[in-house]
């Protein structure tokens, strides 16, 4: 594959290309294409997802009840 003349070529033209590697810091690199999350929309409600979220709701209700209990005990 042909590579046009660049500052890189000018600096390394006397060296064997196969022997060289370019290391680029992520912040200096061009932006990589990532998954388009906005186009995906909300997650599909599979049985696992629904069950997990239901368990989470139950857990949170239990936690709230415990905090309420603590507040009631403190108020006594």
């Amino acid at each position, binding site marked *: 594959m042909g*590579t*046009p003349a660049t500052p890189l070529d000018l600096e390394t033209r006397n060296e064997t290309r*196969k022997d060289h590697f370019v290391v*680029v810091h992520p912040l200096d690199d061009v932006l990589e294409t990532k998954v388009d999350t906005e186009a995906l929309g909300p997650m599909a409600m599979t049985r696992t997802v629904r069950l997990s979220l239901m368990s*989470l709701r139950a*857990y*949170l209700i239990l936690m709230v009840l415990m905090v309420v209990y603590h507040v009631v005990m403190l108020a006594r």
Partner: protein
Amino acid sequence: MTNKTLIMPTAVSTAGSADMSTATVEEAAPVRGRVVKSKITRDLLTFLMVFGPGLIVMVADNDAGAVSTYSQAGAQYGTHLLWIVLLLLPVCYFIQEMVVRLGIATGKGHAAMIYQRFGKWWGLFSLVDLQLVNFLTLVTEFAAIDLALSKMGVDPRYGVPLAAACLIMLVLTGSYRRWERIVVFLCLLDFAWFWIAFQLGPPLGQIVKHALLPSLPAGGVTPELMFLVIAIVGTTIAPWQLFFQQSCIADKRLRFADLKWARLDTFLGACITITAAVCMMIAGAASLTHGFRFTDPAQMAADIGAFAGPVMRDLILLMMINAAVLGTTAISLSSAWAYGEVRGWPHSLQLPWREARGFYSLYLICVAAAAGIVLIPRAPLQLIILGVQVLAGVILPSAIVFLQLLLNDKELLGEYANKPWNNWVNWTIIVVLFILSLILAAQVSAPSLFPSAAGGPTT
């Protein structure tokens, strides 16, 4: 290695490192790179460039609360609980490794992902809970700075605002790299814990035995021991870590090709943080050996100073401040990133103040308000610590459930989604964390159910 900096016009990602012979060029967009000759140098340099988020998230997890918990465990039970800390090494690696994959694949933060994939309600719940628990944790970080400074004879009325000002200046440079380099340097200071443990530690044989062979302290399983074990687990795996590392990876713009190096970064970070935790426990055990009773880590440092000298005392106090500083910058950033992502504000450490006012303002408000509360005489610190424990118990299992569901989202992650063995490991961890969080929250909010448990746990 020629080690030259060069400007290469290309629009195609070189994905960390590229064989020059295969580089394709589409249009002129400057990409700064370094030319190296050997594959080993290429790999080493790529790792050093990717290195950062994993180390920072892990070491910052050993914040002031963690110093307190680990040293308390050592001061009460000697080296008997070392095996539990060691057991947490794969747990924290597996959880954070999922965050790495999610961050690299989406280029977005955890809060944004929850919002987009689970809807507004769960998104708002996670965000509000995170902001609350983070802020309360920040107050405890500054309380630790206050305590350590007082023990060193420095007036906290000057020391705490100075620490807050330095923490604010740290992020206002408009350069992610500058922030990362300073924070990595602070993380590496954690190696001082190794020297402290080496100086104070019991015979190596005893440490190895208690680290590798599970054993219980004299007295067996008591509510106090359970309390401390749960606190150790809670302090090693904190909710802000998930949000922080994913946002950090997104801000650093890590690429798909960086995944293996990001994993290595996270693994090394986990090893360093767990070893430092072991060292903190050994320091606590040394104070127990000399007959001191644990009250707080600053007092423990003073006690150790009584037999190991003032240098050792000041070093432990300085390490306590360093832990709090690291915890503060990471936690405040996780709050600012999460809020910025959800609100759609510009939210990058690469941006100058004028281009990301909301993001930096939130960081500034978090740090300044937490420092301010600590300076208020008779601030309700005990109530704040209790709030941290309860809220962390709420958010940690929920954040991990979202993480696990997102990592099984093939639509979102494709080949980066969890494998069946990942799921077995992760669901096991989640179930255990649910149970422990529930017990911890029950002990904190309903202490009368556990009559023989003396004192609250330390976060």
